[in-house]
């Protein structure tokens, strides 16, 4: 069934109510304007943790709610509407997933309860160039007697500037683009030789460039099942979660634009009565309806453990990448001059949309991958 149940509806509604008060779009503007050193509101994050959002995908045995990815997706859809800046993507969607999938029993026992309680902000350090590429890992991890020694650099590490701990993708063997030899390590932010440089992105959220210079990582911080296939699965899940967030942003951006079409008057009539704009609005509506279908299907595919997760992930991320671009571009155009001003909120959707669609692979990347997975 491609519909949500009562329990899921309730979760979505309560998150929406919470965000409406605690994190309207103005909150993001405030963080940006006051040049907040964290780039997130710690109090808001505390509230989200209290609601249990950090434990949605953690099993009850480790203090989580075991609500599944559909639940997390619904939450992300809501934070996509309010463009809430929080560690939900870095910590819950990506890092918690990584620990669930790749962590050893001891690592899970040590980290999952802390993550569920929201006491730990984590970041996944993978990308090394401007385009997403799972196999492209030059960062080296050399095994020595006392542990692994990491050397290399990472970029576009979401929330890297506030992370307490990193999951670092490095290679223990092979050449730069080999799938073989890839491994995942848990690295403390305070580790010696690790340098973090905050990069403020267009969407007023933060990522970081990170470099490793002979960073020593104890052997037991190697993640047990952290190979290339697991990494791909983490990214697949990440893509679907991002698609859910983008769905929220696309809907909100479209609804705001629709309201403007009804309110703004020119030539003595509402601009929404012009057919040139009506048909473009109708097409956006259709694309968003399509997006809803692929997002719910893909989220369920994670929870159901279906074998074609990669195809579903690329399908969802490609479609949402295409749609968020269309909708946010049209939003600016249909707002006219007002749309270009910083005072209007509509521009924030363009900016977040661009960052989100680039994260973990843009539209061309996923369209190509989808075609490969379909066999052509």
């Amino acid at each position, binding site marked *: *069934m*491609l*519909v949500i149940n009562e329990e899921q509806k309730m979760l979505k509604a309560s998150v929406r109510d919470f965000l409406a008060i605690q994190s309207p779009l103005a909150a993001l503007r405030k963080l940006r304007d006051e040049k907040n050193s964290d780039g997130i509101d710690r109090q808001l994050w505390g509230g989200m943790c209290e609601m249990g959002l950090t434990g949605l995908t953690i099993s009850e045995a480790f203090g989580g709610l075991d609500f599944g990815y559909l639940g997390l997706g619904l939450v992300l859809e809501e934070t996509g509407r309010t463009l809430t800046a929080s560690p939900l993507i870095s910590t819950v969607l990506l890092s918690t997933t990584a620990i669930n999938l790749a962590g050893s029993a001891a690592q899970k026992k040590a980290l999952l309860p802390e993550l569920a309680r929201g006491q730990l902000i984590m970041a996944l350090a993978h990308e090394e160039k401007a385009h997403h590429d799972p196999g492209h890992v030059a960062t080296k991890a050399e095994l020595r007697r006392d542990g692994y020694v990491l050397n290399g650099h990472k970029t576009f590490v979401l929330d890297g500037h506030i992370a307490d701990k990193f999951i670092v993708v490095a290679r223990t063997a092979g050449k730069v683009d080999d799938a073989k030899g890839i491994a995942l390590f848990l690295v403390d932010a305070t580790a010696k030789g690790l340098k973090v440089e905050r990069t403020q992105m267009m969407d007023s959220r933060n990522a970081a460039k990170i470099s490793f210079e002979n960073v020593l990582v104890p052997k037991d911080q190697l993640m047990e099942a952290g190979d290339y296939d697991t990494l791909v699965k983490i990214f697949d899940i990440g893509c679907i979660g991002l698609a859910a967030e983008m769905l929220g942003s696309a809907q909100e951006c479209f609804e705001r634009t*629709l309201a403007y*079409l*009804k309110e703004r008057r020119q030539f003595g*009539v*509402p601009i*929404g*009565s*012009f*057919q040139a704009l*009506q*048909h473009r*609005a*109708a*097409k956006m*509506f*259709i694309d968003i*309806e*399509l*997006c*809803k*279908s*692929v997002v*719910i*299907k893909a989220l369920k595919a994670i929870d159901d453990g279906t074998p074609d997760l990669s195809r579903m992930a690329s*399908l969802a991320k*490609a*479609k949402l990448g295409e749609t968020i671009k269309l909708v946010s571009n049209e939003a600016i155009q249909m707002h006219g001059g007002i749309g270009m001003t910083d005072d209007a909120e509509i521009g924030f959707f363009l900016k977040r949309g661009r960052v989100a669609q680039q994260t973990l692979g843009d539209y061309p990347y996923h*369209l*190509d991958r*989808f*075609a*490969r997975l*379909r*066999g*052509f």
Partner: protein
Amino acid sequence: MENEIGGLNPFRKETRTWLEENCPLTMRGQIKDVNDLYWGGRQGAFPSDDHKVWFERMHAKGWIAPHWDKKYGGGGLSDREHKILMEEMARLRCKPPLFSFGLAMLGPALLKFASETQKEHYLNDIVNAKIRWCQGYSEPNAGSDLAGLQMKAEDKGDHYLVNGSKIWTSFGDLADWIFCLVRTNSEGKKQDGISFMLIDMQSEGTATRPIRLISGKSPFTETFFNDVKVPKENLVGELNKGWTIAKYLLTHERQMIGGIGETDEKLNVLEIVNDAIGSVNGKLNDTILRTALARHEMNREIFALTIDRAIDEAKAGNDSGALSSLFKYYGTELNVEAMELIMSASGSDALMMDDSADKHAFLARRFLRSKGNTIEGGTSEVQLNIISKNILGLPIK
């Protein structure tokens, strides 16, 4: 929930076995064109013996209209059983045993709006393939502006007297009866003077003239009504309330055209393009076409999911009726795009217009015919208008 792993649901199992045993091999696979379907009716011959066998077996099962009530000739299946049957038929790629506007369009409207006597009479005739129906909506001066129709039906006491003409009547020359929109009141709002009427094409004063299409085929007629007497009991619903029926029927037509009805089989674009172009290292050997195809397949897969979701939403009690315009618009735009991809990939092979045995020979006509998809049943532009107005609530100038 059905457990697909621990054994199939009994109805599915039974249906699958029955279809495997009873659907002739030639009744499976791609439908080449309209001549590959059995349409029923007084003039309706079976295209082949297998078509006859298939129709008769399905008919005996009650599976011509599987979800209609048994007293109307249906199979009385529940929604769930119906869905399973459709899925199992799709799995074997079974052709529909009977394809007709009676089943896909008129039937649903009669079920909702006709009197009990009308239902028992007309629905049984549809299921038994006795009567083939055609649609008399459009007129020369009433296309997109359908409510502007002028064909008149005057009340003459014991009958209606009908005068006027219809156009673009698909298969008007092969049909036995026509369901028509007629003007029964010229005053007031144009939508409020329309009635829904059933007319026997053998009535005195009716005539048809074929219209040839760009595909070279002539499946349409202009249909004339000159002092045609129509019995009073042929009115469906109330006098001057036909517009509601007309719109309801259109949503079914749009679903049929948009592909939700799952009867009109699509060409396998991927297969055709792959065969024509070939691939190198598993990648289609034409990067530009590959990108276009990828985008097409992405949207097609998601469109299919959207149909599933609409069905699930309806089951969950969330109204999605307003979405028929979305399905009509998007389904037909995808069809047209698919044909364009096939044409690009097939090159001059797809330009052969003869009916030779060459396996590509049907593509040119299919392509030309596909252009009508975004016109028939309300044009793409009209669907976008409906979405803007009825769903998005945008103002009309």
